[in-house]
Each structure stands twice: as structure tokens, then as C-alpha cells.
């Protein structure tokens, strides 16, 4: 089973990288660009066939290591 974990900054946490990307897009002429937030995607291969158990493990991974829940939120996608 493969999983994708999306880790992004919580709303309200300053994202200077996202801001810089937004400014760069404006400079390139993409005038319609509004707020930009940057995050990361982590792809994980799991030796687990039960999706409920896989999700529980992934949630645990996010809480313990993949995300810093002081500032970040996460989403889990199984495929």
C-alpha cells in the first residue's frame, strides 16, 4: 500500500516561503495569484493491506515525526 502525507503550515502561521513564491509569481505576470502557502509531500510505502490500520499508523507517524503539530497540519491519502 502506498500513502501520501501532505504537511502544511496551519492557518495563521506566517509562511515567508509561500509569500516569496507568491511575489515571484506576480513578477512573472500571474496577476490573479492571491495567497500562496508552501508545504511538503511525503510518499510512504507501507507493508500493510488493511486501510484502517494503515491510516492509524500514518496518523501516529504524523503526530510523532512527520508534522510538528505546534505549527503544521497534515492530511493522509492512501492509494
Amino acid at each position, binding site marked *: 500500500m502506498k500513502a501520501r502525507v501532505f504537511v502544511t503550515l496551519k492557518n495563521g502561521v506566517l509562511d*515567508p516561503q509561500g509569500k516569496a513564491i507568491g511575489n515571484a509569481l506576480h513578477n512573472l505576470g500571474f496577476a490573479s495569484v492571491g495567497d500562496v502557502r508552501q508545504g511538503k509531500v511525503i510518499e510512504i510505502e507501507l507493508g500493510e493491506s488493511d486501510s484502517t490500520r494503515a491510516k492509524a499508523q500514518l496518523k501516529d507517524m504524523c503526530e510523532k515525526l512527520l508534522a510538528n503539530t*505546534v505549527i503544521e497540519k497534515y492530511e493522509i491519502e492512501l492509494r
Partner: protein
Amino acid sequence: MKAAVIVFPASNCDRDAATALEYFTGTKPAMVWHGESDVPDVDLIVLPGGFSYGDYLRCGAMAAHSRIMRDIKKKADEGVAVLGICNGFQILAESGLLPGTLLRNADLKFVCRPVNLVVEESQSAFTRKYSTGDHVRFPVAHGEGNYFADDETLKRLEGEGRVAFRYANGDNPNGSIRNIAGILNEKRNVLGMMPHPERVCDAMLGGTDGRPLFESLVEALT
């Protein structure tokens, strides 16, 4: 005072810390590799600056889960003094020994220069040789030193006198909330700070404002 310096892969201020500790204690500190399971019996554990694990995932995130951290958490709970400088502060925040976290500097730039600080709290083993309100000048060298915590945590830190150092007004190098440069844990035996006191212990290297911090520790822990 017996001290240990923890060495992670890509620590780069471990020897600076060791030199400062040897100067103030007269003995070489134990240098402890992160893969060890126990820290020797010491009064002070220093987590030095650097770029442990190449700052992978988040600064300090990998180091916070290395084997030695289990024993450091245990010893910190038992009251052993722990000082985290720069990357050491990031590791302490990631490991939950200190609240909040260090974000990317607000202007996205790595900043490497001396900054002016105010000692906010002289009631700790780390700062007793300073007076509250003292102005000191320590160097900083980091790209991710922008302290952040939620309002409730900030209220607690301020209310309990746990903000040990603040950047002087107008000299905040990284956008840290409320100019916070260094904080104490609840039991006041763990201090994390972004500026480098170990780099200002010798006039030849540009200043001696860091000396009282080590003298405080020697006095409190000997």
C-alpha cells in the same frame, strides 16, 4: 560541575561548547555521540549548535528522536540542567522539552551577526550571575530561529518568568514573536536559546558577555 556535550551528525559548535566548558570548569566535558544510550552522570548536558542531520524534515526533528534523547529526557525530568544552543534549542523544542518551535527567519535569510539581548530573568541556574535588565551582546548564526508559540503558551511563559533572553528592541534578527531569544522549561532546569553564549567567552574572539552564563552554571551546579 561535570558537563557533557552531545554530538550529533553535523553538530558544528560542539567543540566551541567544550572549549568554553573546559575553561570554566577546569576539566574537559564528556563528548557523547548521539547513538549512545546513556549520558554519563553529569550536572549539565549541552546540546550544541550545528545542522544535525542536515536539517532534514525540520531543524532538530531527526535529532529529537535519536537514541541519546531518551536518556536526556529522563535526566531533564530528574532535574539535570540542559542547555540547548541554536540547533540545540531547535532539538529541545522538537523533543517537547521546551514549548513552541523555531520557524524559518521571517526575511528568509540566514543571519550571522552579533545581536543585542536583554536578560529578562536572572532567577535560574543559567542566568543568576546576570541581573534582570542587563544588556548583553551575543552572536547569532541561523536560518531558522523565528520563535513561535500559541497565545496560551506565550501567556504562560511570560507569566511564569520563563522568557530568559529577549532580543533588544529593534534588533530582532529573525521575526521571533515577542522578541523571544531564549526560554526556560517549567522546572527552570532546561534553557534553549538561539544566540551563542559560548562564542563570547574570550575577549580575543570579540566579547565576554557569555561568561556570566557559564559562571552561573558553575556556581549553581558545583
